[in-house]
């Protein structure tokens, strides 16, 4: 059973703080992803990683960075949190194996920046 875990379900931070969101998967998946989910906007890809220490920008990378030092762990970093980064953040992982990859999602972290 694939398991993707995220370090916090709820997080409240102040404007300007540095924020770390952690994601761990236990299925030896090559690919990992960070999305933000906002009402009316769906899921938007922030960053993804296809291997350790490899990363690519998604559709909305501004204000975010990522780190992947180990295959199972993918961290999202908000260098200086702002109120417009208040959102639900979803981590996902998938295999690299032909077409039609299923992405497995974590439970999400609801971040509030005040």
């Amino acid at each position, binding site marked *: 059973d694939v398991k993707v875990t995220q370090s916090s379900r709820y997080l409240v931070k102040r404007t300007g703080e540095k924020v770390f969101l952690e994601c761990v998967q236990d299925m030896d998946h090559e690919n990992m992803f960070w999305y933000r989910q906002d009402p009316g906007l*769906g*899921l938007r*890809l922030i960053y*993804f990683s*296809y291997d350790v220490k490899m990363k690519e920008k998604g559709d909305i990378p501004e204000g975010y960075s990522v780190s992947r030092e180990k295959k199972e762990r993918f961290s999202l970093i908000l260098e200086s949190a702002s109120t417009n980064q208040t959102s639900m953040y979803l981590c996902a992982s998938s295999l690299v194996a032909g*077409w039609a990859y299923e992405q497995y*999602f974590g*439970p999400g972290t609801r971040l509030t920046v005040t």
Partner: protein
Amino acid sequence: AQRVTQPEKLLSVFKGAPVELKCNYSYSGSPELFWYVQYSRQRLQLLLRHISRESIKGFTADLNKGETSFHLKKPFAQEEDSTMYYCALSQGSNYKLTFGKGTLLTVNP
């Protein structure tokens, strides 16, 4: 650039009625299409993918390349189908997914 459009933010039907959630895409290559679902208090999960041509929980979806659509259908809606549905597109060997904005389905008793 690829795009996924779900024209209905909200869709309401009565129990037992047929339901169709619309999804249109734009992509010049050979797409892979998915429907993801997010039940209350559960994580986002795959409902079905076009390549497997399967029926899950009574739902089916057919890829229509001529109309660039991948509509999700169920002949008889159930109350437990009430939730948020997302259509997603993958560019073949590119493992990124582009999601639509989602449709919230409500099945009334």
